[in-house]
């Protein structure tokens, strides 16, 4: 009898702890502003690849690292304002996007050394971005999955959109990022209520 009382009490307490922990993890991914930053970068960058390709390389070599830094600052500020500092998750996000950025930087070595043509660099970077977003969707925040899937789709539609392949991909990715940002905003609103 006493045993059952003790066990019931412990189970009840552990249930309380589990619920508090679950509440802390609810909507603990990237803040919506990060998706908006990404969509702005893509909004300018992808059409630039179609219409002003000579500026595209300069744009991406500045915009991509800048987006990384701005996203990191936004993420840190967001969680500090929320009152929850998750160092482990922060390091995981930084490592993921940092590695992705470094790999993309290394890609520029390939056409420079003649291993691939400059024309092939764009789809390769898009393919790596798709992989980066899809993996982020699996490991960090589900909301990254949709933009990643649409980037991958963009690689498929590129050959049939003669001349406007980047603009078509941009429309898809920007839409996905907006949807992801909205999903995050709604989840936040639900959490507050």
């Amino acid at each position, binding site marked *: *009898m*006493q*045993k059952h009382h*003790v*066990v019931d009490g*412990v189970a*009840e*307490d*552990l249930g*309380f*702890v589990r619920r*508090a*922990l679950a*509440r*802390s993890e609810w909507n603990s991914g990237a803040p919506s502003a990060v998706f908006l930053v990404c969509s702005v970068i893509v909004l300018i960058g992808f059409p630039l690849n179609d219409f002003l390709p000579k500026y595209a390389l300069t744009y991406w070599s500045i915009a991509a690292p800048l987006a990384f830094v701005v996203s990191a600052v936004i993420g840190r500020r967001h969680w500090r*304002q*929320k*009152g*929850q*500092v*998750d*160092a*482990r998750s922060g390091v995981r996000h930084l490592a993921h996007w940092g590695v992705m950025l470094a790999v993309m930087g290394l890609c520029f070595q390939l056409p420079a050394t003649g291993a691939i043509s400059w024309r092939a660099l764009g789809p390769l970077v898009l393919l790596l971005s798709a992989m980066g977003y899809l993996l982020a969707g699996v490991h960090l925040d589900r909301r990254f999955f949709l933009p990643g899937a649409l980037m991958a789709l963009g690689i498929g539609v590129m050959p049939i959109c003669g001349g406007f392949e980047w603009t078509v991909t941009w429309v898809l990715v920007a839409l996905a990022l907006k949807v992801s940002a909205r999903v995050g905003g709604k989840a936040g609103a639900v959490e507050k209520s």
Partner: protein
Amino acid sequence: MPSKRADKKDDVRFKGFGGLDRLFEHRVRLAICVLLSRYKMLNFTRLKELLEETDGSLGTHLRKLEEAGYATVKKEFHDRRPVSWYALTAVGSRALSTHVESLQNLLRQAKK
């Protein structure tokens, strides 16, 4: 109605849980330490939100943890408003591990 003998038998079976910490007997204090072991720091408002406790009750529990050396507090100002950040100490982390281990033993024995 269980006999006295059965109760005594239970007492014997539940011996050996010296690792159970009296401070963690209250579920709010246990939850605070579990949350602080998961996150690097949590502020008072966030803890209140997560545990659905009143200011007074949460403040009392946090003070007890502070006095035992299980949690530390760092006060800072944000937009001219004071913000208290709480973190788990090494002592608190060890105590929590021992307590959780003892709880697991307890539940394991209860299943037998």
